[in-house]
């Protein structure tokens, strides 16, 4: 990516009529292929023995760590959340970390990729909410605490999706951009430092994206359940008092 192009969408590798293959599509498929290949190779010979391969060890640490994080955030069983949040984290992390490979531009530096990921979260939140609380139960949270909050709740839902997309895009794009600018100004040493910093930012951004997605899902499923339980308890206590 040179200094003039803002997003890897503009880097076209191959064009045939209206069909074009740009850097975003190519590198997204590279990342997907890499993830599938590595996890297929690693899970080929799983063992529950004391002796197991280091790849299995790596995957176990990853999955266990993600399960712990999800449990910490949502205080629920991780079963149905792990595939979604874990995939988001792994995909974005691999996308960002591969940026040390020369010639590679992270697909997350394109607004199309990050918008697609944010729309996935936007769709997943109501899905999980409805799965946990039922259709009406989920819709009811939009008119909480009062009816007047309905437009604000809807606005919040939309604006946080936009924020998710633009945050990841801005961070990764700024990393690639600063690399390109420094390469033009001081090509010897400084780009390496900024690249190292970019690795840190990339990993933190992947973590933040997954955690925020999980926080949104948890807020659609959990807090209201707790509130309802509290209300039920209060009502029961009131009932007991009035009976007593």
């Amino acid at each position: 990516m040179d200094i003039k192009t803002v997003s890897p969408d503009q880097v076209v590798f191959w064009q045939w009529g209206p069909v074009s293959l740009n850097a975003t599509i190519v590198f997204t498929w590279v990342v997907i292929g890499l993830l599938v290949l590595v996890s297929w190779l690693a899970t080929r010979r799983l063992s529950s023995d004391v002796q197991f391969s280091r790849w299995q060890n790596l995957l176990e640490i990853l999955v266990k760590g993600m399960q712990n994080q999800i449990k910490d955030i949502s205080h629920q069983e991780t079963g149905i959340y792990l595939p979604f949040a874990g995939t988001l984290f792994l995909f974005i992390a691999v996308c960002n970390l591969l940026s040390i490979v020369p010639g590679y531009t992270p697909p997350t530096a394109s607004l199309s990729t990050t918008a697609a990921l944010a729309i996935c979260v936007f769709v997943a939140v109501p899905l999980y909410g409805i799965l946990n609380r039922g259709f009406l139960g989920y819709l009811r949270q939009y008119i909480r605490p009062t009816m007047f909050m309905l437009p604000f709740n809807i606005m919040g839902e939309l604006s946080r999706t936009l924020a998710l997309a633009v945050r990841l895009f801005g961070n990764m794009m700024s990393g690639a951009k600063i690399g390109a600018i420094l390469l033009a100004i001081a090509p010897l040493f400084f780009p390496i430092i900024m690249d190292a910093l970019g690795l840190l930012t990339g990993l933190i951004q992947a973590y933040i994206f997954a955690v925020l997605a999980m926080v949104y899902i948890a807020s659609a499923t959990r807090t209201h359940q707790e509130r309802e339980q509290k209300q039920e308890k209060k009502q029961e206590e009131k009932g007991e008092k009035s009976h007593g």
Partner: protein
Amino acid sequence: MDSISLIGMASVVTAGLTVAIGSIGPSLGEGRSVAQALSSIAQQPDETNNITRTLFVGLAMIESTAIYCFVVAMILIFANPFWDHVIAK
């Protein structure tokens, strides 16, 4: 002054101002939140994991305002629609 130089000048100056002013608020906010998080970690070292995670999420929220400013500045410099319109004419 013709419109090309006017638009070019306005874009460059505005891009610089956007990043300069737009980074003041988030940096103050991030400094405050990190200082607060450090002092609460010093008071309750057992809660370090929770505090750190909440800190990172909060920092991401705060930082996104600065990132918006950066994106706007980048659009003004590299993908300015008004500049493209004037050049195309």
